[in-house]
């Protein structure tokens, strides 16, 4: 017990490192928010575009989502950072990580939104169209609200799962929380920094999980 306290909870060893830890934490927060803020709307956009049934476009979208669902996130991050410069596109480690994770999330989000849209009964479309609503109006006012509500629980899981992938940015030297805390661990030869990292990850993602639970309820409509 004493050993555990000495190894993992020796906060005195961290003096002087707190600003670094805070900075790493903020970078993790920024990357997570950006990944979700880009990935989910992009997924929705792709699902809606696929709905128009333009063959080459739909085929392209399906290729995109299959690709980004299959390749491991770590591989994508490394490719985005080390391979893209050869095409003339140089991304900072921060941006390379966000771009890679957003694309993965958008691919999963597209599938979730697509499943939601296609599970809204055909009668809903017919009801909307029969009152003179256009295809787009029926989509926006009738179908999407129902599809998005259906998608919230699986979307939540994906968004959290993929946001946690921001730790992978450490391999291309993004100074995010894991990177910072594991460096401190090496410097001071004590893993307390990682304990702090774990607590901060919890502090970040637990409210996130709670918030999405609240969303699920807020978007629900009364049922018997």
């Amino acid at each position, binding site marked *: 017990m004493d050993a555990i306290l000495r190894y993992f909870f020796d906060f005195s060893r961290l003096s002087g490192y707190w600003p670094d830890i805070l900075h790493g934490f903020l970078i993790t927060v920024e990357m997570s928010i950006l990944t979700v803020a880009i990935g989910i709307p992009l997924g929705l956009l792709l699902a809606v575009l696929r709905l128009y049934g333009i063959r080459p476009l739909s085929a392209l979208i399906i290729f995109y989502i299959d690709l980004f669902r299959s390749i491991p996130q770590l591989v994508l991050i490394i490719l985005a950072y080390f391979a893209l410069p050869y095409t003339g596109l140089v991304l900072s480690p921060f941006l390379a990580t966000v771009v890679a994770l957003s694309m993965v999330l958008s691919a999963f989000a597209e599938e979730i939104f697509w499943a939601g849209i296609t599970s809204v009964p055909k*009668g*809903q479309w*017919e009801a*909307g169209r029969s*009152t*003179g609503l256009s295809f787009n*109006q029926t989509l926006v006012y009738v179908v999407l609200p*129902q599809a998005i509500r259906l998608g919230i629980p699986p979307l939540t899981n994906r968004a959290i799962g993929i946001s946690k992938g921001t730790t992978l940015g450490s391999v291309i030297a993004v100074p995010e929380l894991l990177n910072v805390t594991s460096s401190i661990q090496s410097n001071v030869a004590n893993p307390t920094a990682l304990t702090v990292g774990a607590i901060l990850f919890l502090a970040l993602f637990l409210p996130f999980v709670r918030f999405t639970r609240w969303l699920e309820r807020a978007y629900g*409509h009364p049922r018997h």
Partner: protein
Amino acid sequence: MTATANGTDAARDIVVIEDLHKSFGNVEVLKGIDLAVAAGEAVVIVGSSGSGKSTCLRCINRLEEPTRGRIIVGGQEITGRKVDLNALRRRIGMVFQGINLYPHMTALGNVTLAMRKVAGLSRAEADEKARHYLDLVGLAHKADSYPAQLSGGQQQRVGIARAMALEPQVMLFDEPTSALDPELVGEVLNVMVRTKQLGMTMIVVTHEMQFAREVADRVVFMDGGKVLDVGTPHEILVEPRHQRIRDFINRTRT
């Protein structure tokens, strides 16, 4: 009040169907339908399952695309490529077997959506008018209820209010009571009778023979994708000329 059994009076006819054909793949469901419906008339279409009743109805607002033939609504041909479908559908109300209320909106929201987005009414105008139509179907007090909080009969009455609120030239009812518990059928039929009394032109596909007998100006009997006979409820349902119709009536009379 009624037009002649199969006659057309172009000036008064709200809906004219000429030689309507519809195929699904190789299966021809409608094999040349001719029908004219006058303003204020209630026409009930009866017939066995698979006779093409619903398909015929759904061609009138082009939820189904006719394969051949012409349909004229309010003096305007609605078949053909250049038709503004959304403007057309606004003039044609439809009530569905599956009811199809929007589950994420209140009764009021269901009725006002198209009034605001299609007819361009302000929220206040739409709300006021919607409450009037909800009152007409006896559900003014349920304006703020969600569909899941309403019985099937109440849901269908909201469905009728949703269609009526756009003040269409004709209302199409596609088996409006078929999905309901027997005890809830009456309230929906009562609302339909009231709709008729308001002078609404109605085309109704139903299995409710009593409703057809009591409310219809004319009854259309469809069989195998064709109109087998058209006439007064008495001519079709009480003293049918055709053996095929007599068999049908005997089987539905339980």
